[in-house]
């Protein structure tokens, strides 16, 4: 700490100095006069999660359609990889209920959290935009404007910009974990983007001149171009993060994160939440879901391992933040998990699945209502989208809007999801309802019909 401390004292600006002067008083920025204190963590599963193998029919006629369409990769009803019942109709992938080898008292699994009503599942969610492109679909979702990619801000950026119930000063409002800042935080210049706080530092170079370099860097980046400004904000962020890192991290409450970047990145979020410097929004990515090939048969293989990493990561994150007293963060925490689209009902000849449509969303929260939400559209051929994919019956923006209103206390849907209308809560989380400000029609969605007048 000594070297970064030295850099900090000489190089930083007044506000961090004031913050440091509070002797890490954890109440300084974490608890202010009735302001909203909830934390929203948005997890994006990149590549198109095969939602039909995460939540699949276990009964009724749809089970028959499912088994016929997925003779190899389908999740069985019996045996070691049997689906775990969510209700009479739907089951959960068995890898959502596994523990790391050798752990002592098993912490809660994701399936345990579901049974404890800390996890709500929304089936057949997605966008009513007819597009099977990864890149378009991710852009639409993260920008919050299905049908257009030219939006200059992400939906989380607009949430932070429009929320009227946040304290006037927050040191770290938003954290984008990963190599690059996610599109949902596009335009949020105040978001900090990092992978690991321990390397978010300028503690390299000739030791005795680091502090003086730091002063000079401040001045070199003090002009007003976009580059100077973003460099200056980065220096601010380094000052802040260096004060809250350096000694590694030990998860609390027996939480066991999976190895790999997903688990590491969740730990970064948990660690920053626990520093109580005001984190309100965080984004985390988890890739590797584009399973065109070799998903794994009968509930095992690649996809199962991947679901296991997802489920263990989520469960560990919840456990880590689920302490008591001042260390209970889950009562303020809502985690939303989504992906750009689901995958086709029918498996392909490579025991994989191609790009599809409707998908599962997960909402994990101390204030979750639990259970399965949304309308299951059915898997009969005539019930499928484009004769091939699970239909979308719940607009993904409905789920996010509910979290924004009931948990974050922000009803400015007109700004956050322009064009989205007709919001009513689905009931995935507890909270106070507010009338949505979803005013004018901007556009319903991008190009949902075969109407060609627009091109002629």
């Amino acid at each position, binding site marked *: 700490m000594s070297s970064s401390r030295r850099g900090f004292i000489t190089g930083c*600006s007044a*506000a961090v100095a004031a913050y440091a002067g509070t002797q890490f008083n954890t109440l300084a920025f974490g608890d202010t006069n009735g302001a909203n204190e909830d934390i929203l963590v948005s997890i994006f599963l*990149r590549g198109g999660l095969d939602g039909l193998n995460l939540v699949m029919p276990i009964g009724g006629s749809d089970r028959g359609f499912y088994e016929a369409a997925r003779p190899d990769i389908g999740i069985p009803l019996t045996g070691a990889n049997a689906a775990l019942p969510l209700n009479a109709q739907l089951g959960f992938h068995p890898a959502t209920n596994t523990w790391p080898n050798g752990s002592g008292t098993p912490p809660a699994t994701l399936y345990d959290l579901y049974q404890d009503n800390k996890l709500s599942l929304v089936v057949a969610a997605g966008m009513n935009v*007819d597009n099977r*492109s990864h*890149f*378009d679909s*991710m852009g639409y979702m993260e920008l919050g404007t299905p049908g*257009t*990619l*030219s939006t200059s801000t992400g939906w989380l950026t607009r949430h*932070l*910009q429009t929320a009227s119930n*946040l304290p*006037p*000063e927050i*040191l770290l409002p938003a954290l984008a974990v*990963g*190599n*690059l*800042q996610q*599109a949902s935080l*596009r335009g949020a210049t*105040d978001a*900090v983007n990092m992978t690991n706080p321990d*390397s*978010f*530092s*300028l503690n390299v*170079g*000739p030791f005795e*001149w*680091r502090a*003086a*370099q730091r002063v000079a860097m401040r*001045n*070199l980046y003090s002009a*007003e*171009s*976009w*580059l100077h*400004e973003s460099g*200056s*904000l980065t220096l601010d*962020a380094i000052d802040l993060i260096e004060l809250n890192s350096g000694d590694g991290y030990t998860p609390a409450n027996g939480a066991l994160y999976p190895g790999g970047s997903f688990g590491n990145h969740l730990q970064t979020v948990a660690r920053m939440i626990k520093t109580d410097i005001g984190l309100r929004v965080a984004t985390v*990515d988890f*890739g590797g879901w*584009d399973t065109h*090939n070799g998903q794994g048969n009968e509930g095992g293989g690649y996809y199962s391992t991947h679901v296991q990493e997802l489920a263990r990561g989520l469960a560990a994150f919840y456990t880590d933040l689920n302490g008591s007293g001042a260390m209970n963060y889950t009562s303020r925490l809502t985690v939303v998990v989504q992906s750009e689209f689901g995958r086709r009902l029918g498996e*392909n*000849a*490579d025991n994989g699945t191609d*790009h599809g449509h409707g998908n599962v969303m997960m909402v994990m929260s101390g204030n979750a209502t639990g259970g399965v939400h949304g309308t299951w559209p059915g898997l009969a051929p005539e019930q499928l989208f484009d004769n091939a994919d699970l239909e979308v019956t719940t607009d993904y923006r409905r789920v996010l809007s509910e979290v924004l209103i009931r948990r974050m206390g922000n009803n400015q849907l007109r700004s956050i999801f322009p064009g989205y209308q007709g919001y009513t809560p689905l009931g995935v989380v507890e909270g106070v309802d507010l009338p949505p400000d979803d005013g004018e029609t*901007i*556009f319903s969605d991008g*190009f949902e019909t*075969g109407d*060609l007048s*627009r091109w*002629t």
Partner: protein
Amino acid sequence: MATPIDSQRSDFSRRKLLQAGGLGAAASLVPKVARSEGLPAGRGPAMRRQRQALPEKGLPATPAAGIVALNRMGFGPRPGDIAAFTALGANDPDRVAAYVAQQLDPDSIVDTELDNRLAAAGYESIGISQDPDTYRATLWDWYINDNAPSGNTSSSLPRDELTRATFVRAMYGNKQLVEVMTDFWLNHFNVNINHSSFVRTMYAHMDLVIRLEVMGNFRTMLEAVAGSTAMLYYLDNYTSSNAGPNENFSRELFELHTLGAENYLGVIQQNQVPLDDDGRPIAYVDADVFEATRCFTGWSFSYGVSGDGDTGLFYYRPEWHDRFQKNVLGVFIPQDQAALQDGRDVLDALASHPGTGRHIARKLCRRLIGDDPPQNVIDAAAAVFTAQWQAPDQLQQVYETILLSAEFRTTWGEKIKRPFEIAVSAMRAAGADFTLRMDDSDTSSFLSRYDDTGQELFTWPSPDGFPDVRGAWQSMTPRVAAWRLCNWLIDFDDDADNYYVDVLGQTPGTVRSSNELADFWIQRILYRPMDPADRNEIVQFMAQGINPDFDLNFDDGDTRDRLRAMVGLLLMSPDFLWR
């Protein structure tokens, strides 16, 4: 998959919709929050200085054309490069024209230093053969079938050697445009090298086929890439068959390799797509992807099944091919064509479509000029691309159109270097003497720091390639990691304590005062003067309170360290990042 951060992509269908609907003012319908608005006052990192964020302010003036050209057509100047550029002509347009002509004719360029360094590095898997099939069969035999002569048969070896060789070529090669464009096409046809052991091994073959065609013809490159082992495996076409078509490759072929998403109309019928003046569909729909998938069934490689020989070479499996008629982009494809012809018809239709020319011209201009390149240059390049789609020097002509435009040499500051460009240009400007090798802890040390920047070579996870817009690289992770890397580079020494960047050794003995040291190294790193206030910052850093006209004593270790730190500061400065 990756986050798309391509804010410049034109939103074709949206725009059309609004025009047709007579709504107009499309842009105003989505609330665009100007960069300067940001969060309400007082929120956000509280230490933010008071200032108006006006994006135009503080932007640098366009420097001399040599600095523009060497930073955009290459990885920045090495000592002597600017002087050589200046000697090419009497004025900037002439110099640029001469330099472009030189770079467009790479066979004429002598590369002695690079050749010597590559030879000294002794990479086993690089440069074995310039014949693509000989090369890929060898890679397969050595690292998949484990017959490498050295006995090191790890599939990571070709990957690790290619990474090292790519750095060395960019740092010491004189064919700088070849390096820039190879990087461009490898990202255009992105394959994540860490996808699997097959890809780790065979990626170097894809690198070779791109290099062989980098000044050539797009259609030829497109087929070479489509048939490369790495691409066939990465996007699953190698198992795509009549009985079980896999559309992964075909989708990205349309969306990323050729027409681009701006020419995608989604899930509608082929016969509903309007035709252009030449009678071809103006864009593609899902059905085109499905039909093209059928055309490519049977395009595979030999990996040891059904008597295919287990060679790693392209292998056509006629029994897997869908023999019936198809229709792709308005092209009727009759049944029972000769082997490979269906796929080749698709590639022809795509490579000749004006939408492909526009898509690729825009990307090239974005790489070579700026994030929001001038439309007239895009149009000119697209016209050449499409008109010359069968010319053997098509790409040379397209590059030339862009590089000889006035906009190429007169624009600056819309873009910043990405981490690979920062790392390589830092070592070039600072005169690093560093050949990346295998089994060398200093190389590993360098690469592990470089990889923190988020641009670990060839590892972008999804098929769209590393982003090429400044918005993405304004993220803090790459900024902090690149600063760390630069400041570490000037402190980086070998086992005998020799610095890889010999700052003091490169400083003339007559340059000893803080003023002289600052001016000498500003010129060496930036090749142009700094803003006076910034220069003063550098001088004061070096002087540390001593009269800046006084000579400093370099017998003192602290002073030597400070000089290195001063160079580190220049490498971390905003001026070093513009391109």
